[in-house]
C-alpha cells in the first residue's frame, strides 16, 4: 500500500503534460485531406553527404535540371572522394594542349552568359564526323569516340549525362560573363585544365575562396575612381545570392 501514493505521483506527473498537450488547440496538423494536396516538405536531418539528387531519364526530370528545390543548406563540399569519371573520358589535354583549341571554342557562352555551357553533341560531331573511330583504315581504335557517335546517333541520340565537376549550390549565381570579360583566366578557378584528361575540380569553390580572390585582384583600370565602388559592389551578397 505504501507504493500507492508514489505511483499516483508518477501517474499525475506523466499524464498531466500529456493531457495538457492533447487538450491544447490541436491546430498544428492540417486537415488530412488537404495534406495530400498541399504536401509539406520535411527537413532531411541527415548529413549533407547523404543527400544526392536522384535523376531519372524521363524528359520531365531532365528538364528539371535540379535547379530547384535544392536545400539551401547544401553547401559546396569537398570534391567527390574518387576522381570523377565521365560517360566519355574526354581528354582536355589533347584538345587544349595538343590541338591548341581555345576553351571558348566549346564553352562558347562563357563570355556571353552566366553559364559557360557544355557544348551540344552537334559541336563535337562538327569535327568528329570526319575522324574515324573504329580502328579501320589504319587509324587507331578510339573507343571513346565510338561512344560519342552512339550519343549522336545522327542527331537523334540521348543527351550525354556529364557529371558536373564544378558544381555550385543552387543559391549561388556565378556569372562567367563578367569574369571572362573582366579578363580572369579560366585556369584561375578551373585549374590547369589543359593538363587534365577528364577535368577534375581543384579549387574549393567555397565562399571564402571567392572572397580571397576578390580581395587580391586589382580591379580593372577602366573603373578608375570607381574602383572602391566596384569593390563594395562585389561585397554585396546579392551579387551572388538572390
Amino acid at each position: 500500500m505504501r507504493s500507492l501514493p508514489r505511483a499516483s505521483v508518477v501517474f499525475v506527473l506523466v499524464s498531466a503534460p500529456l493531457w495538457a498537450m492533447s487538450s491544447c488547440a490541436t491546430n498544428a496538423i492540417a486537415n488530412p485531406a488537404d495534406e495530400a494536396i498541399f504536401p509539406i516538405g520535411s527537413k532531411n536531418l541527415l548529413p549533407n553527404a547523404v543527400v544526392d539528387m536522384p535523376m531519372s531519364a524521363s524528359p520531365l526530370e531532365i528538364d528539371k535540371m535540379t535547379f530547384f528545390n535544392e536545400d539551401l543548406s547544401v553547401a559546396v563540399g569537398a570534391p567527390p572522394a574518387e576522381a570523377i569519371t565521365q560517360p566519355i573520358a574526354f581528354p582536355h589535354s589533347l584538345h587544349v594542349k595538343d590541338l591548341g583549341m581555345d576553351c571558348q571554342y566549346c564553352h562558347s557562352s562563357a563570355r556571353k552568359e552566366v553559364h559557360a555551357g557544355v557544348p551540344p553533341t552537334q559541336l563535337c560531331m562538327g569535327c568528329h564526323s570526319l575522324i574515324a573511330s573504329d580502328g579501320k583504315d589504319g587509324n587507331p581504335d578510339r573507343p571513346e569516340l565510338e561512344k560519342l557517335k552512339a550519343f549522336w546517333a545522327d542527331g537523334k541520340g540521348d543527351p550525354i549525362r556529364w557529371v558536373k565537376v564544378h558544381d555550385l549550390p543552387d543559391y549561388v549565381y556565378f556569372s562567367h560573363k563578367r569574369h571572362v570579360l573582366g579578363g580572369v583566366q579560366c585556369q584561375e578557378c578551373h585549374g590547369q585544365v589543359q593538363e587534365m584528361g577528364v577535368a577534375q575540380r581543384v579549387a574549393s569553390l567555397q565562399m571564402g575562396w571567392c572572397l580571397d580572390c576578390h580581395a587580391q585582384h586589382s580591379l580593372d583600370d577602366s573603373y578608375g575612381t570607381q574602383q572602391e565602388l566596384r569593390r563594395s559592389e562585389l561585397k554585396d551578397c546579392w551579387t551572388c545570392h538572390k
Partner: protein
Amino acid sequence: MKNLTYKDVNKDVLRPLFTPDYAYLGVLGATLTVLVVTGLCWLYQMVYGLGVAGYHPPVFWGVYITTFVFWIGIGHAGTLISAVLFLTRSRWRTGVYRAAEAMTIFAVMTAALFPAIHVGRAWYAYWLFPYPNQRQLWQNFKSPLMWDVFAVSTYFTVSTIFFAIGLVPDIASVRDSTTGFTKKLYGVMAMGWRGTDRQWHHYMAAYGFFAAIATPLVLSVHSVVSWDFAMADTPGWHSTIFPPYFVAGAIFSGCAMVITLMLPLSILFKLEDYIHVWHFEHLAKLCVFTGGILTYAYGTEYYVAWYSDNQYEWGTFMDRVYGKYWWVFAVMVFCNCIAPLVWWFKKVRTNYVGLFVVSLIINVGMWFERFNIIASSLAHNFDPAGWVYYYPTWVEGGILVMSFAWFFLWFLLFVKIMPSVAIAEVKEAMRPPLKYEPEHAAK
C-alpha cells in the same frame, strides 16, 4: 532554530544524497519520460518546420520567446540572493542560496534551449556565435539578439563559476562522508580542499571577488534581454522603461520560483531546520517589493503611452485591455499585481500553503506578462490590415512542458548529487560549538 551541532548539519544536509528512495526514482523517471515525450515535439518541429507551432504572422514570436524570457527571469534570483545578499551580508541567504544558485544555472540552461527551438533553421543556430569561418562572415553586433548571446553566455559562465566555487567546501564535506569510488569522484571535485585557514582565506577572497563580478550581471542580463523588445519599433515594445521593468520582473519571478522549488524540497528532504519559513518570508517580502515595482511599471507604461499621444502605441495598449488578448492581460494583472498583496499579511507569508500557492500564481503571471508583451504587441502592429489573433498549438505546449521537465531533471540530479544547502555557511551562521556542550555534558 533547533539546537544543532555541526555534525547534525552534515548529517541532515547530506541525507538526501546517497539514498535514492523509490519516490525520488519515481519522480526522476517521470521527469525523464516527460522530457522524452515532449522532446519528440521538438524533433517533430525540426523535421516539419515551425509551422507546426501556432505562429500567425505578423506574430512571428510566440510561446518560445515568452518562455525564453521567462526562464532567463527565473535565473535571476539565484545570483541576486547569492551574490548581492552575500555582499550585503544578509544572514538569511545561507539556507537558500545554494539551491537558488543551482536554479539559476539550470534556468539559464533551459532558457538557452529556446533560441535554438525558436529559430527556423535550428541546425544553423551556431551561426549566432562569432567564430572565424571560411565564409569570412561576421555577425551583426548591432543586433540586440547578438547582445543577448553575449549577455546570456556571460551570465551563464559567471554564475557557473560562482556556483562551483561556493560548492568547494561542501563537496569536501561530501567527500569526507563517503568511501570508495564516490569518494574519489568528490575528491577530484573538491580540488584538494582541506579547510585550512590559508585555504579559507583565499576562498573567501575569491568568493567575494566573484560575487562582485556577478552582481552587475544580475542587472545586465535581463536589461539586455529587454532590449530585444525595447530596441524594436513595435508599439508596446519600443520603450525605455523596459530594462528596469524587466529586471524587477525577473527578480520577482525568480524569488517566487525559489519559493516554489524550495518549499517542497525542504519538506521532502526534511530540511526545515535549514530552509526555514524565515527564509521564505524574506523572499516573499522581496516579491512584494518587486511586485510593487512591476505594478508601478505597468502603470507607467500606460501613462507614457497615453502621454506620448502616439496612436499606434496607445492603440496597442488599449488593445491589450479590450482586445482579444484581454484575458492574458487580466491574468497578468491578477497574478502579478493583486495576488502578491496577500503577502502583506504575516499570516499568509509565514504559511506554507500561502507561500506556495501565491508563488505559483506569480510564476504563471510572469509567464503571461511576457506573453502579453510579445503576442499582443505583435498582433496589433502598425497596419490594421495585419491584425490577427495568435494562439499556441500542442507542439508549443509540449515544448513548454519540455522546458520544465528539462529544468526539473537537472534540479533533481542536483539535489541528489550536491548538498542543496550550503553546509559551510550554515555552520558559519550557527553558534560555534563549545568544547563542552551542555548536551554533551549530559551524555
